[in-house]
């Protein structure tokens, strides 16, 4: 049975196997269907990825992935509007610490919009009242807002209340803050 050179004629004679498969001709139709499925799935994926690349601010790539929001991060990535945390600073004031949060908001929706920062919760669970809100912004308009909070000396900010008001409907959410 050692491999030796054979001719085509030899091959045909020695290589003959009984055809037990061709009666299952319906299986042949599985091949084009099976190949079409990945073409559709992968094609849809490719088109979707290219669309993401041209989606600008709407792109999923521009939304932060992570546990909490730090400077430069989107506070409310799930909304159609943009609220970027542009600054988060903490400094000692002698009898405590002062937290400053600044947000750049942009109305990328097609309805009147307002954004507000509310109370901050510390790592110890204490709620610090305060906040700020933008004026009502028309579609395409931008604004910045800044809020300050006086925290106890040994506290660090853990989260902040946010409210997006779009077309008169409030949508409130507690956003976890990255270490300031």
């Amino acid at each position, binding site marked *: *049975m*050692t*491999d*030796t*050179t*054979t001719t085509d004629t030899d*091959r045909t004679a*020695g*290589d*003959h*196997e*009984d055809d*037990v*498969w*061709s009666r*299952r*001709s319906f*299986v*042949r139709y*599985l*091949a084009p*269907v*099976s*190949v079409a*499925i*990945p073409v559709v*799935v*992968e094609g*849809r*994926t490719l088109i*979707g*990825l290219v*669309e*993401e690349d041209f989606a600008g601010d709407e*792109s*999923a*790539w521009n*939304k*932060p*992935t*992570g*546990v*909490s929001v730090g400077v430069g991060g989107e506070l409310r*990535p*799930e909304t159609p509007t943009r609220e970027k945390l542009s600054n988060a600073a903490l400094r000692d004031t002698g009898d405590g610490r002062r937290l400053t949060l600044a947000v750049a908001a942009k109305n990328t929706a097609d309805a009147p919009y307002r954004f507000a920062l509310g109370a901050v919760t510390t790592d110890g669970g204490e709620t610090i009242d305060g906040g700020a809100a933008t004026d009502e912004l028309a579609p395409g308009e931008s604004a910045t807002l800044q809020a300050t909070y006086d925290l106890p000396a040994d506290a660090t900010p853990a989260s902040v209340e946010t409210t997006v008001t779009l077309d008169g409907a409030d949508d409130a959410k507690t956003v*976890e803050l990255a270490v300031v």
Partner: protein
Amino acid sequence: MAFVDDHPLEAKVARSSIAVAIIAVAVGGLLGLLQAWFRTGFLRPFSAVDYYAILTAHGVLMALVFTTFFTVGLFTWGVTRSLDRGFHDRRFTWAWFALMVLGTALAFVSVLGNLVGWIPLHGAVLYTFYAPLEASPTFYLGLAGLVVGSWGAGVDYLWSLYAWRKENPGERIPLQTFMSVSTMLLWFLCSAGVAVEVVVFLVPWSLGWIPRVNPLLTRTLFWYFGHAVVYFWLLPAYFIWYTLLPKFSGGRLVSDSIARVVFLLFLLLSTPVGVHHQYGDPGISQGLKFVQMTSTFFIVLPSLLTAFTTVASMEHGARQRGGTGRFGWLRALPWENPAFSGCALAGIMFAAAGFGGMVNAGLNVNAMVHNTLWVPGHFHLTVGTAVALSFMAVSYWLLPQLTGKRLRFRTLAAVQPYLWFVGMVFMSNAMHREGLAGVPRRTSVPQYSQVAFNLPITGFDAVHLQIVAGAAMLFVALLCFLVVVTATWFGRRGEAPLAVNGHVPEPLSGPDAGPRILDNFKLWVAVAVVLIVIAYGIPLASIIQHGLFAPGSAPLPT
């Protein structure tokens, strides 16, 4: 006369090896289904902690046990058939087989210890078993038994080749033996790394003989082995695609010499590239990572050679069967024969995996997908389809020859490769997309309460549905395979003609068209060793510059 009549001992060895492989894929496949459903939150019948033991068992059974046992079974058939001679010493042969089985049982029971309270062992360290995760010594010793046993199989092949060469001086090595031996030489070279990791570090560490080991050193030794092992899985699939797929297509291999060059390139290039799995590791310089990245991209060459040669051989077969036209010949291929369709679909999937693999190999692009679900998505295309589906496909053709029994439930067999293929399309596509969003791998519950993964294109519900449905289709395909092989195995001999034979047609361009130096294994092993020393000498020297065990880490969990 079937192979089982010509070589009953070797048929029994091959059959037994493939039987263990099938048991491993059955258990591992069930665990894979549970794992996929658990991660997506579709079904959670066990705790998040138990998930890691199930993940380890799935990985070890599928990637190490199924592949290794099937490979030694396939090569036992290929070497014996192509040399037309049996093994030298049956006691030695059964000894390595027994060692592989015992090792597998020991490792599996160790992992089971994480799930069953009365087994005083543990082994939920994933199949990439490096420090600081620590298993019971029995886990490492078991895997060492599996590897050393497989070395015994390689020795048997070399022994047969040595004896054949004495009787046939000046003859070219038959292609199937050439492929089997070069694969086992690669295996000897690469598994030396994991042997050192286990014997010198992990076993003494897990026994408490040494208090700490250097995690980077054990990771580097693992990945020295861990990338080349991918080719130890793949080369048996290449063995099938080069020597059997042309026959299934109705034709002949285009070039014997290209096949030999491809296997030698893998022998040379598979091992000195493992650092591309460690792009995220501190402690290895960016320059060395860059060097190994360029080496990694060289491996694209033999894969492209394989794509060209196998497709050309399939086209030759299709035209022998009456196929015509630029693409019309594709219709003439025997798509209803699962031995053919399984291999062809596995090849298509491997092409897709190759593109993803280039992303993994790129030093900069890798950062985007490193340790994300993209990576399991990738290797479910390589080992999970290119290899596993090829093994299943060839079983439909090989098993009758090893058992002397005609294949049963042929319609089920004919449908099975398509089910597997489509199931994997859904599951792997979803895993790749989750990986792009940063969803981590190796985690039981990635839905941390404060994490927001921004999935491009669709939401998590859609990709989770894809994973749930894809895993279910894969499991149904696996059940189809198990029904066919089990029914065939327990069928009666002589009820009907086998309908297959072991004749492998000669290539259109035979071995004499290539230089004889291709058959000089001593030379190629020497070159491979030099490349390994160049690639790994500097990083290993750097890692151990402050001592073999410094900076060390205590075992985890403590």
